[in-house]
């Protein structure tokens, strides 16, 4: 009778591990085993970050990116100065940004839209946008949130400027409505209303003065005592986008 062939196994498991578990991609560590491909081991076993090992004493893992513990994106300051945490500019205007107190590797400027131009030493940047709305500008690591600081820049544009009605007789009132993007009293403050120089019969001074004095309201009613025929405009200033009212008539009754 022929005897079946078989392998001879060593008696000790530790002898066993070095040979057998390495076949499964594992190495011993502190009485246990760790997977070489996905884990690291120094004082303890931990998962790799983005496929790499890292020093847990000075680094941490965020979304598969290795980040340094000791980093600081610093503080961003801006001209014009922020109002309630936001820099407010007309569309096409430019914010001058600078950062101080930054510390770490590969710190850089980034933004959600618009045009950003960093200085050569990366400590300053100018920022502008041709579109209305709010944009977040960030300085720091693109991947490590602890190493990042942001500032919001709002670019304001007049989006509508209307009256109802557009023709009335003296003694009656017209309602003016003005909206901006972004909307809100803080952004309306950037707006100015003026009389087009082609308004041959301009409106009373106190109409335009009154609108500009209370621009945050967004809605004004004015009673006309004299005939006039005018063309108002509204602009957030700085850019050349101007919203016209285009010919309002106030006639004498007959």
């Amino acid at each position, binding site marked *: 009778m022929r005897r079946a062939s078989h392998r001879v196994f060593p008696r000790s498991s530790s002898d066993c591990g070095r040979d057998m578990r390495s076949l499964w991609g594992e190495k011993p560590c502190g009485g246990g085993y760790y997977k070489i491909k996905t884990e690291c081991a120094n004082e303890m076993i931990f998962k790799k970050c983005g496929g790499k090992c890292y020093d847990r004493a000075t680094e941490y893992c965020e979304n598969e990116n290795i980040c340094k513990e000791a980093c600081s994106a610093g503080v961003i300051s801006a001209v014009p100065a922020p109002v309630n945490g936001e820099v407010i500019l007309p569309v096409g205007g430019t914010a001058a940004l600078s950062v101080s107190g930054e510390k770490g590797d590969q710190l850089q400027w980034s933004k959600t839209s618009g045009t950003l131009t960093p200085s050569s030493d990366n400590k300053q940047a100018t920022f502008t946008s041709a579109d209305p709305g709010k944009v977040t500008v960030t300085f720091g690591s693109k991947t490590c949130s602890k190493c990042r600081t942001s500032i919001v820049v709002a670019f304001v544009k007049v989006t509508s400027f*209307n009256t*109802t009605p*557009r*023709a009335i*007789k003296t003694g009656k009132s017209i309602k003016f409505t003005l909206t901006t993007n972004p909307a809100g009293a803080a952004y309306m403050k950037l707006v100015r209303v*003026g009389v087009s120089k082609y308004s041959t019969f301009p409106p009373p001074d106190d109409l335009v003065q009154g609108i500009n004095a209370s621009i945050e309201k967004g809605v004004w009613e004015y009673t006309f005592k004299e005939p006039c*025929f005018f063309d108002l405009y509204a602009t957030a200033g700085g850019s050349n986008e101007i919203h016209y009212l285009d*010919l309002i*008539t106030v*006639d004498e009754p007959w």
Partner: protein
Amino acid sequence: MRTKKTMIGVLIGLIIVMAVLAILNKSSVPKYDNKLNMKMDCAFDNVDLFEVINPAYDISRELAMGVEVNFSFMESQNGKSRRFSLNVSSMTRREILDEIVRQNPGYYWKERDGVINIQPYREDNDKNISPLDMTIPCFEVHQIPPYFALEYLTRLSREHNIPIISDFYEMAIQLGHKLPDSSGKLEHPENYDPRRLIDVVIPHKVSIRDCLNAIVLADPPANWEAIKWKGGKTRLSIRSSQSGYSREKNLDMPNSY
């Protein structure tokens, strides 16, 4: 045999041609019909037909329109014109126009060369032709703003004894100021936003109504309105809702107040 094959070939060819024509015919739905079938929201609050022309209202902003009313400006101001309200959402523009005229008996709307015209019905035996249906020999303007085109049109109308007037002209007479430029040409075109300058060329006999339609079509979105005025005249206005940038070099920027 050969004749039979030829006839079959001709028949197949005819069928193919007819099929292609049928497809082309189906796909050539007038472009303006598609525009009127678009849905939108619309809200009017206690307005009369004269007040419908206002970029504050979506329909006036979305469509080139012209409205002729048969009441006077003072009747409108004194609350003697018919007023209506409308508040709809997701209704086609066609349905909104139908509703507007439904609430204003005596008026109808029609599309004329890309401009929606709302105007009063006229009785067949009505000998009073609307000034807007009177004609001038031709109308041509180049690179001027719409309201200057209107001034030129009213000057031509006066020369042909058509009783129309513009609001700008009327105001100048009223206040004793210099009459508006009705030459049809700009002295300083560089001061104007080029997007707001229009060209209209109608080299043949044309009604005032069709001139107005051509002006607003050249400056979309824009509208015209015609209302009875004192002295038996009809006053015309052009309203443009286009915002634009200014290239005025001496724009008076107001000081902070």
